[in-house]
């Protein structure tokens, strides 16, 4: 039986209402256990998790409230959204994956932006293409700095390690490495931000 919000009626006898009342109390107890610490336990009413079912559109927000909810994102996946008060412009807060190991790692920022970063080893003099996974809609920025643990500081007092990120595409950028001397092995650290 499902929860019945139309009982008891004015002319019902208790023999009739008893089963309906019992059912409602049991349904309330079971339903409340979902996402919440059950009643009659310490922390009752607090959350064990918050499950957000996908909504069809942004909810309305009043002047003194904001909302967190699940909507289909631009990448056709359920995503966490935030809407400021007074029906403000909603912001996608999430992306569905992060990478936390390896030379290319990534996270995300509210916007939604994907934040790529990492290291490329054994850079070639001249043009090097850094490929980003996944592709973004627009690559907004890419920055890079030379690094090498094999190179002693005394070796590059007169060297120049200018490096120029350029040629942004949806899944790559180039770095042009143009040292003034003849360096040994070189690596770069990089950071790139794109729109999901």
């Amino acid at each position, binding site marked *: 039986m499902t929860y019945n919000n139309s009982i008891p009626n004015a002319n019902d006898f*208790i*023999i009739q209402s*008893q*089963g309906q*009342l*019992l059912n409602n*109390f*049991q349904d*309330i107890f*079971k339903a*409340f256990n979902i996402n919440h*610490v059950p*009643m*009659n336990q*310490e*922390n*009752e*009413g*607090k*959350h*064990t*998790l*918050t*499950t*957000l*079912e*996908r909504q069809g559109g942004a909810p309305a927000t009043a002047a003194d409230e904001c909302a*967190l909810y*699940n909507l289909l994102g631009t990448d056709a*996946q*359920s*995503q*966490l959204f935030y809407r400021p008060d007074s029906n403000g412009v909603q912001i996608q807060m*999430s992306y*569905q*994956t992060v*990478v*936390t190991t390896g030379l290319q*790692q*990534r*996270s*995300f*920022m509210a916007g939604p932006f994907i934040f790529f970063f*990492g*290291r490329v080893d054994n850079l070639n003099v001249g043009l090097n293409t850094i490929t980003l996974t996944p592709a973004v809609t627009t690559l907004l920025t890419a920055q890079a*700095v*030379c*690094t090498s*643990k094999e190179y002693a*500081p005394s070796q*590059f*007092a007169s*060297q*120049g*390690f*200018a*490096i120029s990120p350029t040629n942004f595409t949806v899944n790559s950028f180039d770095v042009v490495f143009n040292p003034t001397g003849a360096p040994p092995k070189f690596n770069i*650290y*990089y*950071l790139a931000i794109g729109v999901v």
Partner: protein
Amino acid sequence: MTNTYDPNIPQPLDALADSQVDLLSNFIKMSEVFANNHIPLESATTADRGKHGEIELVQRVNTPLNSTTNLSLYTKEGTDIESQLYYLPKDPNSEIQITNYQNYDVSMDDSRIFTFLPGGFIIYFGFFTMTSAGPFQFELKPRCKTIDSVILSPKLPASQFVAPFVQTTSTKDDEGVEYENIVIAFLTRSSGTINQVMQYTVIGKL
């Protein structure tokens, strides 16, 4: 807990005189419990009833299950043994740790700012002043176990063009735990000017 919610009342042979107390007790209890984290059932603003005033997330042991279109937010013990906020976009294998640092407030000293990125990352940014062309050592606080990326950008007029170069190194704490928390900056193609302001962004893991 003032009273106990009883999901097993009323029973078939209960007289209304007996059930009335039980019914009242359950209604009171529902109201009390629902008021935790939620706008109370008795709120004068009918439209607000059922919304959340806050969401207190009691630490879980296990990753929850999701349907294909659901999202979940919850807390679990993070790598630093503190409760951290987790996000589950899809199946349990897609779990993402959102927060990762709470022992100190996020710094707002504009020369040393840090915050976190989803995935267990910490991101530092700000600036330091190099008093020579290098090596100049800059210690990250709080300490991170690994540095995944460093970006340096001189804040200089074009006439003092330099190309930064960076290395990293480690320190150990009193218990021998190793932290890659030192950025070593160098200036190349320097015109000899010192006291160069260097802007930095560092991403690492605690």
